[in-house]
């Protein structure tokens, strides 16, 4: 069954169609990548799926239920989690606390219990902290746990963001350029991590510029250009598709066509 189902999704900004009529689906344990040249609408697509933007047209369904245009925190409650291309880390908190916030839905409770430090509140906080430490170990950040998040390197912050997203035990995980700005070693680590998460049954939707990585780990690729889906299929098919090659090699091919 597909956990994430996108139907005819579209949005316009001031009359410009940023994304138009895009449909695809992601099944449990599957890694689907969205690729396309800069400005093709990949991040806009992500923002519509994750509730940051209200789609102008089309629908999003999570585990078969319609969730189009739902606020991000409600989507999170339904098992959708994401990371951001331009990092959204809580700079004012420690690395551990960043990871702990991923457990918010599990650790939250009555405010009064939190204000008066009641045993229930302490227990919830402690459990979330243990979970967060385990996740930091999984992404190789356990030794940085008590450092301020702002002091980490870019690659480490990327991993921290993934750890925070995983803390939510999502059914669907949206990763927006998780390897951007990372060196080869870091990219490979993230690569393994994504494959591992998918193997545990999470549906993963990925936007990534690193083509080697995309070709290596994706089960299915969706290609966007000028906001429209121009191709989709297995990595091998897509990389041979003439439209895709034209979109990537630039305008000359387009001029020759038209």
């Amino acid at each position, binding site marked *: 069954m597909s956990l994430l189902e996108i139907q005819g999704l579209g949005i316009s900004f001031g009359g410009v169609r940023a994304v138009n009529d895009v449909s695809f689906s992601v099944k449990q344990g599957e890694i689907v990548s969205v690729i396309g040249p800069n400005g093709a609408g990949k991040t806009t697509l992500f923002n519509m799926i*994750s*509730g*940051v933007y209200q789609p102008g047209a089309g629908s999003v369904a999570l585990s078969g239920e319609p969730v189009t245009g739902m*606020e*991000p*925190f409600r*989507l*999170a*409650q339904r098992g959708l*989690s*994401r990371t*951001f291309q331009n990092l*959204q*880390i*809580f*700079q*004012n*908190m420690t690395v551990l*606390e960043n990871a*702990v*916030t*991923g457990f*918010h*839905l599990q*650790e*939250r*409770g009555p*405010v009064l219990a*939190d*204000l*008066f*430090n009641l045993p229930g*509140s302490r227990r*919830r*906080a402690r459990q*979330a902290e243990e979970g967060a430490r385990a996740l930091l170990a999984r992404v190789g950040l356990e030794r940085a746990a008590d450092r301020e998040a702002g002091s980490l390197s870019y690659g480490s912050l990327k991993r921290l963001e993934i750890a*925070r*997203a995983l*803390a*939510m035990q999502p059914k669907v995980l949206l990763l927006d350029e998780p390897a951007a700005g990372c060196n080869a070693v870091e990219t490979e680590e993230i690569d393994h991590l994504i494959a591992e998460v998918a193997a545990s049954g999470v549906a993963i939707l990925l936007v990534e510029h690193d083509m080697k990585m995309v070709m290596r780990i994706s089960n299915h690729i969706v290609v966007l250009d000028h906001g429209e889906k121009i191709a989709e299929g297995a990595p091998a098919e897509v990389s041979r598709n003439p439209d895709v090659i034209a979109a990537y090699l630039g305008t000359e091919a387009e001029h020759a066509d038209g």
Partner: protein
Amino acid sequence: MRISTKYWTLLFLAALIAVTPFFFPSGYYFRVGSLLFVNGLAVTGIVILTGYAGQISLGHAGFAGIGGYACALAPVHWGVPPALAVVLGAAVSGVLAYLVGRPILRLKGYYLGVASLGFGILVAMVLNNERALTRGPDGIEVPDLGLRGLLKDWGLNLTNGEFWYVVTGICLLIGAWIALNLHSSPTGRALRALHGSEVAAGTVGIDVARVKLQAFVISAIYASVAGSLLALQNKFITPDVAGFLHSVEMVTMAVLGGVSSVPGAILGAGVLTLLPQVLTVFAEYEQLILGLVMMLVMIFLPEGLVPSILRRLRGRDE
């Protein structure tokens, strides 16, 4: 580790409150001390709203006014005991904060600052103009709390200054304890998370509008209780307590000491309560010196006194 930091902070604060009276040259300083504690309590509420959740209010004096006038009016008009009037004021402030905050806190940016400013002005206007009830700008007497007489019956004989020093000191400790509890609790983490990034807070499932509202209501209750304590110890209250200047003063105290830190904000309240007392010698230059101190702190210690100093100390350790 965090737990011990919390209790060290509280222990230090308690020790400071308990020991300083031995150095007081006169009974007058008990009054200055309790004024400082009341300000500290109000500012601790600002820490929760502004330091934790990153929301700015310029109308919190409105809640202090409600708390203060609850103690003046409820005992006289409805026969509520003054101690219960504090609770009543806090409840009214909490409900009002909820009603005012609910529509505003859904919006991002400075809407809360502007809207709360309007709220504060509105409260001050009502207190000034509803003469039949509040007796207007000249102010109104506040009945005695009654506790001091009760303590005397039990053999504990305190002067008025001493009594209020102890009561407000205990209230400040409780307020600080609650705010420190909140800091590393699930709700406190959610508040600080939305301060860091509202978008990211949403994606981890934090209902941003809801937790903002919680912070607003909690901090309104702090301001309200502080206003009540002020009214009860002065046995008199004027609409100035709800005025714009008082709102600004609260924010200034918090920012001076370090708005993200409870001990910092209390220190800020301390500095801005004590400086005018010290500066009475230079009466003409008081405002000038205050302004200069504020500017220097903001230029050289932009995070506020306590966080900036802590950071430097830590930096030296490493």
